């Protein structure tokens, strides 16, 4: 039954857009409470050092300073065991600094300047220890040990095995090996990490900029030994997450402890520099690939060794995240991959838009491009030959995809780009300004990572709807998406829906806004909650209209039997309801299928071989998103993700000084984010197979746009100048040095 959709699939500005741009939205960084103190964290200036002694007397004596805490002052709090957080290797405050920026002490003072001055007055005796920055060096036996059990987090590598790679290589006509490296990147959320904690009569409230408020609710209750009902975390508006600000971190706990000890609300807000030095990052990768293929292009074996540079602390399977792309983007019967999560004396690696996939795809998609050329195949044809098909799904568990638009992404993207017409032999562009074209594909299981999600709707007597969802709107338009789904299901206008999100006291735990999963997860829960409310409305309406409830539908705020123009106003039905109508919905992971997002990007670049400057001229971004919920929001997601992805390819890189282990560019001047002037034409192209899992057939989109541009650009640069780059970013220096050296590939 193809019912016409009235709200879903259209372009809608964010429902809270005007609040955001007019400054009326209250972000956590806007929360200033009476009597509030400012917390500041003392950070290690050494990449690796033992804290021998901390003298806080002078800091404590400074007027306006209300508390100074060192590791021994917080030893009683059971931080390691707390639920809702991942680190088992990171102390709350540390007496061994493992990266420059590690939390050593914390102060609370009446204003920010006083807090900074207090930090200056804390005298710490450090005993510097040998440090290691390079992950391959860190794996050597002689490397300085960063944690007692050595520098391999988890003590053993992650292994993937399918079929028999040796057999696969024997069947291959071409076996190609390559090494690929990606740098450390920062999320650079517009709003840095910030929270305001307040204790009031035994209850802890935290205003936070957080993609998952239920995590600290659980952690803080455990740490302070109070019931979860006494902890409330609120994130109404948030200035970006991109994977950071996604769970309980040290600063949440420190702000709450400081507030408890001082009796004042305490705010901890990271400076931009702290946000570079002491949050999570896209972890650098070193990756060795060896792939085999037959003459006709069929892949016969995929072998990978992945080294994920996880920094000083490790709370996720970093290398595994990278290996997921080798595991699933292409169909291949033989796979062997080993992944190493390695400690180094650098800021910690973490979740960042598409986790390890962008790194993995840089390796895999450049590798595939090289193999296509060696096989004398068109890169598009080579992808079409090998991409995982609908029936392939999870090739290890033998579970098919719920839908798969990859072939259409590649074909329609190539057509829109004019690939066949534009194709040129690599390096054949004449003159000093050389144009080139490149492509890359990506698929990821993010859409399938649906945790149990729950939502509630309440129908007001005037026919408007309040909706309560646990999903945090991290800036990606999640509130708008949820409102559109509810409006569509209930047959009411979008502006009749009001959304309360991510307040632990008013909404239900639906997991973090990460993994591109909330459109499917919370979106399904919202649709079911709306359907539940509608069912109750129809029961009453059926009695009033003396008809069967199965025949009813809502149009423009009135309930009609199908095909009839004699209806009853929703408000009249609501008057007959014995109590306020509320609807509930819960969603969980379906069995028997895996839901993936698919994408293919095509870029044209111009390389100035005189100056080394690379410009991206055009990007066609074809994405299988299932049914688009908010077309405008989806376009924004593609634009934003692609812009970040291009920065990954060309400009962004956290740079560390080898002699001191210090980060040299923790600021927005020297860490070179793409600016609007760098952004080319971006043409999103949506492939919309109706997916059986998500609401109205929708899938996820938040992350995949990030994963594709960088390798596509690397391939386009090769096509332009005939020099292969296997290390990012490809900046002015890379081009000029590469030009002088010539191609190595």
């Amino acid at each position, binding site marked *: 039954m193809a019912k016409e959709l009235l709200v879903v699939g259209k372009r809608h500005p964010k429902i809270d857009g005007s609040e955001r741009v007019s400054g009326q939205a209250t972000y956590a960084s806007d929360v200033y409470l009476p009597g509030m103190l400012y917390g500041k964290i003392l950070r290690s200036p050494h990449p690796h050092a033992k804290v021998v002694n901390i003298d806080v007397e002078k800091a404590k004596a400074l007027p306006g300073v209300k508390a100074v805490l060192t590791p021994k002052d917080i030893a009683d709090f059971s931080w390691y065991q707390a639920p809702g957080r991942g680190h088992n290797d990171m102390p709350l405050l540390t007496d061994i600094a493992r990266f420059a920026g590690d939390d050593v002490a914390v102060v609370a003072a009446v204003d920010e300047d006083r807090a900074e001055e207090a930090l200056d007055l804390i005298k710490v005796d450090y005993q510097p220890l040998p440090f290691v920055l390079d992950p391959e060096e860190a794996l050597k036996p002689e490397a300085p040990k960063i944690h007692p059990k050595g520098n391999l987090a988890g003590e053993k590598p992650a292994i993937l095995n399918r079929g028999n790679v040796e057999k696969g290589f024997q069947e291959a006509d071409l076996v190609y090996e390559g090494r690929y490296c990606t740098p450390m990147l920062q999320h650079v959320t517009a709003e840095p990490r910030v929270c305001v904690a307040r204790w009031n009569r035994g209850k802890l409230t935290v205003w936070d900029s957080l993609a998952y408020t239920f995590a600290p609710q659980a952690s803080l209750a455990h740490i302070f030994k109070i019931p979860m009902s006494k902890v409330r975390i609120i994130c109404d508006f948030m200035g970006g997450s991109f994977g950071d600000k996604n769970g309980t971190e040290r600063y949440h706990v420190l702000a709450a402890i400081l507030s408890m000890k001082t009796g004042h609300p305490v705010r901890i807000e990271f400076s931009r520099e702290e946000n570079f030095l002491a949050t999570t990052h896209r972890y650098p990768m070193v990756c060795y690939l060896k792939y085999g293929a037959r003459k006709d292009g069929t892949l016969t074996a995929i072998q990978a060794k992945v080294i994920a540079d996880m920094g000083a602390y490790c709370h996720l399977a970093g290398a595994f995240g990278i290996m997921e792309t080798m595991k699933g983007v292409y169909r291949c019967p033989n796979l062997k991959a080993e992944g190493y999560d390695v400690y180094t004396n650098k800021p910690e690696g973490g979740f960042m838009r598409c986790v390890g996939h962008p790194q993995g795809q840089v390796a895999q998609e450049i590798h595939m491009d090289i193999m296509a050329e060696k096989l004398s195949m068109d890169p598009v044809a080579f992808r079409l030959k090998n991409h995982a098909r609908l029936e392939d799904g999870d090739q290890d568990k033998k579970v098919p995809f719920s839908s798969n638009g990859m072939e259409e992404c590649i074909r329609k993207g190539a057509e829109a780009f004019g690939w066949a017409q534009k194709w040129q032999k690599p390096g054949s562009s004449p003159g000093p300004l050389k144009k080139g074209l490149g492509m890359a594909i990506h698929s990821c299981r993010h859409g399938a990572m649906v945790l149990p999600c729950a939502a509630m709707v309440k129908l007001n007597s005037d026919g408007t709807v309040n909706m309560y969802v646990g999903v945090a709107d991290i800036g990606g338009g999640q509130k708008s998406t949820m409102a559109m789904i509810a409006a569509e299901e209930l047959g009411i206008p979008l502006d009749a829906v009001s959304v309360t999100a991510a307040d632990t006291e008013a909404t239900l735990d639906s997991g973090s806004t990460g993994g591109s999963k909330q459109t499917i997860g919370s979106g399904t829960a919202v649709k079911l909650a709306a359907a539940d409310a509608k069912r109750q409305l129809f029961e009453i309406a059926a009695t009033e209209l003396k008809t069967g409830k199965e025949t009813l539908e809502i149009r423009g705020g009135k309930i009609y039997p199908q095909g009839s123009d004699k209806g009853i106003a929703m408000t009249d039905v609501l008057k007959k309801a014995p109590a306020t109508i509320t609807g509930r919905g819960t969603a969980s992971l379906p069995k028997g299928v895996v839901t993936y997002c698919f994408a293919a990007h095509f870029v044209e670049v111009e390389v100035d071989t005189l100056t080394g400057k690379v410009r991206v001229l055009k990007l066609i971004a074809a994405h299988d998103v299932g049914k688009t919920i908010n077309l405008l929001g989806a376009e924004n997601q593609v634009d934003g993700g692609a812009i970040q992805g291009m920065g990954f390819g060309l400009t962004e890189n956290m740079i560390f000084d080898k002699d001191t282990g210090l980060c040299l560019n923790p600021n927005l001047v*020297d860490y070179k984010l793409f600016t*609007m002037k760098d952004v080319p034409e971006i043409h999103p192209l949506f492939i919309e197979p109706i997916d059986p899992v998500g609401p109205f057939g929708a899938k996820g989109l938040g992350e995949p746009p990030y994963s594709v541009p960088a390798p596509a650009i690397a391939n386009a640069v090769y096509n332009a100048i005939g020099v292969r780059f296997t290390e990012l970013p490809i900046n002015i220096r890379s081009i000029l040095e590469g030009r002088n050296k010539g191609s190595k590939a």
Partner: protein
Amino acid sequence: MKPFDYYKVASVAQAVSLLSKHQQKAAILAGGSDLLGMMKDRLEGPKFKTPAFLIDIKGIKELNYIKEQKNGLKIGAGTPLSEIVSSDLIAKKYPLLSQAAGQVGVPQIRNVGTLGGNLCQKPRCWYFRGKLFPDCFRKGGNNCYAPGGENRYHAVFGAANCYKVHPSDLAPALMALNARVEIATSKGNRMVPLEKFYVGPEKNILGETILGPQELVLAVEIPNPGAASKGVFLKLKERQSFDFAVVSVAVSLSLKNNAVDQARIAFGGLAPFPLRAVKAEAALKGKGIKDAISVVCKEATDGAQPLSHNSYKVDAAKGILEEALVSLA
């Protein structure tokens, strides 16, 4: 930010008198886009202290002007960069100066940033700007971290121990235009050629200019362009906005009978000061532009002394000069 005393002055005399009184402890506040950032960063070194006194000169109206005079143009030091960008007079007479001003930072920075501030800005070297590198020469320490460290953006000319580069876009442009700087001192005003205004680390390890602690830049004077003259400013940067030059070049030349009569070429981003390419100028003189390009580019970077990671800057300088010359040919 550390506390400081703030003076809002209405005249140059008042500013100079306060500078004379507080000497090194004082700083001039104009746009503040560089100064306030460093103060917020609490950046200090043995001889680089957060100023205890700020002298705000934004209220001195007679520092903000662009005026044509008999022998050229005079621009007040307090003139916002955005006004230089939007001046029709400058666009017509000295297009390369418009181009240079238009490439500074972003519109917000050009709205607050001034000509004087742009010429007097501090180096962007990340060791100088890094709080945890106090021993840097530029801050009064005893070390330069660049030669053994991450030096991809550092100097390839004129370093003398300290490998900073001068970050100004206007300085090479004005140098190519043969500009002079007017300086207020406690003993009256003096005028110096821009090339003399800037000094290398061998002369002043703690600064980039000859300005004394009680001195203040008042204006820049640019002579009239010669007959049949043209110029261009090009800036190579990692991204198209909000970035300092990897290398920039300003070329100003006049032609006679299709050959170059006079030429001035200056680079930004290559040396601790805006770098005039005298040998390249000589190689250009008397020749057709196109015929001279390869030899001029070679001469321009002759004698470069790159560090471990920045020899590409020599290539980049050649490349951008070639593009500048091609655009003028």
